[in-house]
């Protein structure tokens, strides 16, 4: 079984401009994040590779899992990538597996039980499921899923699930109580005054429950 982090921080430079991807990763690791997802939807390939390489090397030094969002090519090219996280519009998990091999971590997004089962069947190592609560990080036309629906999924899906969407210090206990493997966060960390401390506090809730 591959080791999937329990506290994943997604680097997002669209919802805030204060920190670069690398700075986010550094602060997150300092605060105790055990997984980083590098996400940038606008940079050209050469710059994505450059930035991802730096962050992946940092993660490796700290024994933190690095996953690259969307781009399988970038994950292939940078040697240190732990894996990729794939959404619906990306290359399929099956195809990504052909390129990345068995050992790399491949995560998939699911917005429903049906999608979660599908991701598991396709061979995902973990599922990012959400959004659990209302979130400002991404435009979401559909309603938040809530923790009751999350619980239902956890009963059926065997691979680790990371809950995502609007999770912060105020509601993380409710999420952890479902028995979910871990959480992925963006806004609650990046919009806080001190991201490293925000991560540290979230970590406490996960590991000292």
């Amino acid at each position, binding site marked *: 079984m591959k080791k999937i982090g329990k506290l994943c921080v997604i680097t997002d430079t669209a919802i805030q401009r204060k920190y670069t991807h690398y700075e986010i990763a550094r602060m997150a690791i300092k605060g105790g994040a055990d997984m980083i997802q590098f996400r940038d939807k606008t940079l050209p390939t050469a710059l994505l*590779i450059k930035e991802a390489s730096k962050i992946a090397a940092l993660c490796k030094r700290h024994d933190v899992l690095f996953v690259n969002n969307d781009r399988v090519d970038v994950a*292939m090219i940078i040697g240190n990538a732990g894996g990729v996280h794939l959404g619906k519009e990306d290359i399929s998990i099956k*195809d990504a597996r052909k390129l990345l091999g068995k050992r790399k971590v491949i995560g998939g997004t699911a917005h429903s039980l049906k999608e979660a089962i599908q991701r598991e069947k396709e061979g995902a190592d973990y599922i990012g499921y959400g959004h659990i609560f209302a979130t400002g990080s991404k435009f979401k036309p559909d309603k938040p899923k809530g923790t009751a629906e999350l619980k239902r999924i956890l009963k059926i899906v065997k691979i680790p699930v990371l809950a995502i969407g609007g999770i912060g210090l105020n509601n993380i206990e409710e999420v952890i109580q479902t028995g979910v493997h871990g959480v992925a966060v963006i806004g609650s960390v990046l919009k806080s005054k001190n991201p490293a401390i925000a991560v540290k506090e979230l970590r406490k809730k996960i590991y000292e429950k």
Partner: protein
Amino acid sequence: MKTPPKVKADFRLLVITGRKLSKLNLIALTKRLIDAGVKAIQIREKDLPASELLRLARRVKSASNKSIKLIVNDRVDIAILAGLDGVHSPVNGISLAQVKQFAPKLICGKSVHSLSDAVSAEKEGYDYVLLGPVFRTPAKIKYGPPLGLKMLNHVCKKVKIPVFAVGGINAQRAVKCARCGAHGVAVIREVMASKNIKGSISEFKSALGSL
């Protein structure tokens, strides 16, 4: 094990796709291009998400045949999965070394806008360069004034790898580019927006001597 021979830029006309400029879907368009004798197609659909681009590349590949080189813009993962022949690196795109690391047999082209870019692309080991814009074209106005035929001629003298002129190319201009030493030309609009694809391709064939 016998290794397959390395793919080379043995074509003169590179047709770059721009599905929004064409009334046909890309599969129908590919079939027309193949029927017209085109030898190289570059799939360049930057706005498509990866899943759709891969689906499209696979469909183009199955509509294609061995005599056609299929090259995809920037994405080595898609090239490998769809079994294409090459990857084209735009400015700030994937590097040659990165492509070769995973797919040493793929043909690799590079977009360049100056002599120094072209010289470094040759040094790095690219198989060919697209130099442009040589003429004024609506898509590339943001890159400043066109380079012109003199610059094309200058670059062609300085580098040994095939130089394809790009930017505002039509059949008449293709003749001029070839006279300036260009190995060939790359076109988007002139073919994509053409009402008579077969006719356009045959004009390019006469202009360049071959496809």
